């Protein structure tokens, strides 16, 4: 930890991000953590499963100027911070860390951390309230059926227990580091680090589900704003700003 993080811990809450969003006067670097979330949120209507004491539920408030460019890159730098924290904590080395665009942190192909960033204040405030919500699976030994194939935890991967507070502090330290670089305008450095950590940055065969349909193609890098460049099967270069990315498996995409 470095900046003046102020941490408020709650035993149980609907969602740490919803709670932090309601604190309209909160200072930058205010954090909410919880042992249990009853209504953790993901993109669109996705839910984030977080039972009592099994993981880290953390929301952090950042307050960049509304006029700042590259706000969306905060979404990617949060994943970089989480991946780095996971890769450098405890005695057990966690290997196979990956980031799926834009900010799912994976071990192999299973998700260990989910991130949802929300901004409030566009149109009415000089400084935005950016709420970075991070959920990390730490102690789970198994997941219920629908998640079993797609989720994992630190415990499952390493067989060992991680100390939540130590991990939280390591994560906040990494987040402060990358946010500091963002404030300094070092967008290229963030994109570069993201690309080092992600197998999805370049040359990955993927299917992207957009609101308007599906695209398949090969990833061709990350733009400075964090958008994903996709070289489609028809040879077009497309910029993806929003959508679900999935690794293309053999036999898929022939339609």
């Amino acid at each position, binding site marked *: 930890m470095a900046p003046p993080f102020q941490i408020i811990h709650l035993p149980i809450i609907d969602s740490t991000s919803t709670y932090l969003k309601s604190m309209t006067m909160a200072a930058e670097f205010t954090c909410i953590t919880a042992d249990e979330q009853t209504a953790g949120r993901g993109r*669109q*209507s996705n839910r984030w499963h977080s039972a009592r004491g099994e993981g880290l539920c953390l929301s952090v408030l950042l307050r960049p100027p509304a006029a700042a460019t590259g706000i*969306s890159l905060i979404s990617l730098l949060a994943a970089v911070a989480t991946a780095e924290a996971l890769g450098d904590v405890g005695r057990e080395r966690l290997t196979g860390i990956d980031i799926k665009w*834009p900010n799912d942190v994976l071990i192999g192909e299973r998700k260990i951390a989910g991130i949802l960033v929300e*901004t409030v204040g*566009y149109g009415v405030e000089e400084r935005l309230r950016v709420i970075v919500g991070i959920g990390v699976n730490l102690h789970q030994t198994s997941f219920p059926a629908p998640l079993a194939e797609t989720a994992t935890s630190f415990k499952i991967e390493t067989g060992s227990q991680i100390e939540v507070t130590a991990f939280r502090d390591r994560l906040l330290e990494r987040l402060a580091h990358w946010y500091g670089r963002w404030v300094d305008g070092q967008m290229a450095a963030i994109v570069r680090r993201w690309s080092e950590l992600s197998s999805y940055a370049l040359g990955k065969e993927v299917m992207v589900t957009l609101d308007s349909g599906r695209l398949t193609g090969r990833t061709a890098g990350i733009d400075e704003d*964090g958008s994903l460049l996709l070289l489609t099967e028809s040879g077009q270069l497309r910029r993806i700003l929003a959508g679900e990315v999935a690794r293309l498996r053999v036999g898929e995409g022939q339609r």
Partner: protein
Amino acid sequence: MPERPTGREVERSEHLSLGEIKELIELVAEKQFNEFELERGGFRLRLQRGGQRATVEVQAATGVQPVSVVVPAPVSAPELPVSSNVQPTADEKLHVITSPIVGTFYRSSSPTAEPFVRIGDMVEVGRTVCIIEAMKLMNEISAEVTGTIAKIFIENGQPVEYGQPLFGLKQ
């Protein structure tokens, strides 16, 4: 209640009131003219009837944007739907909320949730009107002024560019 520009907005053309235009349309209908033209005080009003629809054009000779009104036949119909087709003079009166970022426009917080706002809704400063998503960053866009939602320029799930109009608010 759906938004309807009032006669006062049409009167921005200063020399012809909505009432007068109505009267003229009724006159044209009554006399069965196919075309009617009136010039007064630097403005030209042209009424033309043809096929299914009759067109009313008010043109400012001074270079002010023309007001054009489409009147469905029969021309003599007493309730003129002038309001819904006054372009673009009425829009100039609206406060336009534009997109502060590039992304995807969403009218609700999730596919199953109710829209944040609908046409005719009264909104106060700070009220969330939509979300624009970019890189899984959900940006809540707030109304900068108090007013009534008169126009929604973008459909749910569509991409938006920086500065693109999203909503028109009548203050």
